[in-house]
């Protein structure tokens, strides 16, 4: 039996109509994922290998290691099909839906990363798929919208409210509440009601399962620390899972945005650091750390990285931080941009802005803020092709010595990207 609570956190705070689906899913999770019934896990692993491109390499970063004086190893989830760790979860859940006899997939997406991963997995497994996306996001994330459409998914713009992630989640929930019998809702991170946090963690745990073997092959022991960014926390939990019983320091790097101080008046958090600055609450089906005002209204969160821009965090991760097993730290937008440019320029890898948060923390550590030890594994959760436009704009506003000069290309025809 799987447990639905992590200390104070977790649980199943969902509408009554969904409880049977949640119970059915819990049952399926225990049978297929935990007990490998019908060879589910074997097929999952095989498809992640052949379709997804696993195992991803663990790469020694020559330049960063030299710069920081400790050995930096990059777990290259950016090389996964679709360009991020998201596929581990999306493929796992779509495959599970298939084993459960569901014949339709729905998912919400904000920036579009989870939506594209789900659309890819659904196309691969020949399942009809509908993605809900706020209409504001549809307009500003067009390449991802086209990708989903090319993969045969329906993209349904949600017109309510501000037309972003929050409304998209509500609309997906509404769909699910009315279609639970034939539909599976693929949640995008280790959030939501049980069994989602546990299940998504288990799918993402391929990351640390491989990384642990790889680093031991390389240096003959486990690393001193593992560093991963945390939005909802799925790449984080995936990168930590198999190191939890080792003597390894685990760092969850949150988006410090432009400031760590909440604007109570406006109900706005200029960051997405729910582990570091949030308070206990119930969001999207689970008790966890949440960015909220003193009345319990959920705040708008902010980050230069769309994928970290979320007011909650996975309940198990919140618990691990509470327990002291995981350290929650933050880096701000500017440090993140610097780390983005540094990796691009010095290692020839353009990281996702999400992942650049993890990299930025190396810099903070090297300047004395933390002792990461001699051997450090960083989870490079995704590639940054999707972020280039944002990075150019945000770099333009700042004075970053590490950034390349782009002025030449502004003169030469063509406006934006």
């Amino acid at each position, binding site marked *: 039996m799987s447990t639905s609570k992590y200390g104070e956190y977790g649980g199943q705070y969902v509408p009554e*109509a969904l409880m*049977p689906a949640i119970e059915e899913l819990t049952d399926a999770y225990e049978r297929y994922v935990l007990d490998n019934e019908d060879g589910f896990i074997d097929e999952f692993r095989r498809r992640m290998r052949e379709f997804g491109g696993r195992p991803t390499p663990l790469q020694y970063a020559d330049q960063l290691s030299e710069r920081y004086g400790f050995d930096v190893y990059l777990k290259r989830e950016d090389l996964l099909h679709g360009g991020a760790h998201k596929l581990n979860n999306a493929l796992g859940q779509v495959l599970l839906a298939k084993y459960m006899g569901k014949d339709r997939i729905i998912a919400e997406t904000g920036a579009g990363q989870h939506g594209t991963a789900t659309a890819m997995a659904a196309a691969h497994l020949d399942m009809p798929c509908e993605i809900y996306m706020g209409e504001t996001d549809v307009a500003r994330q067009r390449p991802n919208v086209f990708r989903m459409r090319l993969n045969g998914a329906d993209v349904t713009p949600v017109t309510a409210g501000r037309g972003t992630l929050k409304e998209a989640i509500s609309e997906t929930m509404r*769909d699910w509440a009315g279609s*639970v019998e034939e539909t599976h809702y693929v949640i995008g991170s280790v959030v939501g009601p049980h069994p989602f946090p546990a299940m998504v963690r288990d799918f993402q745990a391929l990351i640390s399962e491989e990384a642990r073997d790889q680093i031991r092959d390389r240096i003959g022991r486990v690393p001193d620390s593992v560093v991963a960014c945390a939005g909802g926390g799925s790449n984080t939990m995936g990168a930590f899972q198999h190191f939890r019983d080792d003597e390894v320091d685990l760092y969850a790097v949150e988006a410090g945005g432009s400031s760590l101080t909440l604007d109570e008046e406006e109900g706005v958090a200029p960051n997405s650091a729910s582990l570091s600055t949030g308070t206990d609450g119930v969001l999207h089906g689970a008790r966890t750390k949440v960015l909220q005002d003193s*009345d319990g209204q959920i705040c708008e969160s902010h980050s230069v990285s769309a994928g970290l821009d979320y007011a909650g965090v996975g309940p198990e991760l919140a618990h691990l931080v509470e327990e002291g097993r995981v350290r929650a730290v933050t880096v701000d937008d500017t440090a993140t941009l610097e780390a983005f440019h540094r990796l691009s320029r010095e290692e020839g890898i353009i990281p996702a802005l999400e992942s650049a948060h993890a990299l930025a923390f190396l810099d903070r550590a090297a300047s004395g803020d933390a002792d990461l030890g001699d051997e450090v594994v960083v989870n490079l959760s995704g590639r940054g092709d999707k972020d280039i436009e944002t990075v150019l704009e945000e770099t333009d506003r700042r004075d970053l010595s590490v950034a390349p000069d782009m002025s030449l290309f502004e003169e030469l025809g063509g406006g934006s990207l």
Partner: protein
Amino acid sequence: MSLASAFEGGPAFVPYLVAGDPDYSASLSYVEALDDGGADAIELGLPFYFEFVEELDVDASLVCMTYYNLVSRYGESTGPRPFVERAAEVGIEGFVVPDLPVEEAGPLRDACDEFGLDLAFIVAPTTTDDRLQLIRERVSGYVYVQARLGTTGAREDISAQTGHSLERLDGWEIPKAVGFGIGSGDQAERVVQAGADGVIVGSALVEIVGEGIETDAPTTEVSSRLAGKVRELKAGALAGGSSTNRNEHGRTDPTLER
């Protein structure tokens, strides 16, 4: 005092509106219009301000419908107790918390008992028998019978669905209010004919408020439209009650049972 008493005068009509939608003072008028129209109880979507309830001048019983995060975050200490205490002070008689399944409801149930408030639960078409049992043990005030799963699809078979749902609650000594997608007096009538002790109406009223925003209609006009709709629905419910042998569907004396 018990919410169940709102169901005593025959089939009850229970409208729903959100406090503060579209703004504080307009919504005060709107909620009062529901009362004028003959609401027996009002489910109030209540973000967080209790002063709204203090200002409100209505006869109907007030039920607070809100997310569990708001309930559990209120005040200095953690847990739902401070919220329930304050709700009791302003005269709220009970709660419906749609994202709080019965399994997680222990702390709120305890606080409600302490302050003498009711805690209604929703029963959905998908609710399993095991869970029905749990709900029966913990519900008070009324049970909210969700008429169907999706809001889309054919609405004609609403009475059949409702009949089926109510059969599963046979013998429960608590009023059964049916809601979800009911929008006309006619539907209200058929739901009551199918055995409901009350009719809950939400989106049809929220839509009227929404139209008011879109057409920039004066508050008084929206209020009178709301009151009209409420009268239609109430009349439907009453008509359903008189045209049917209600005991056939297992209706019992609606007294508080916990």
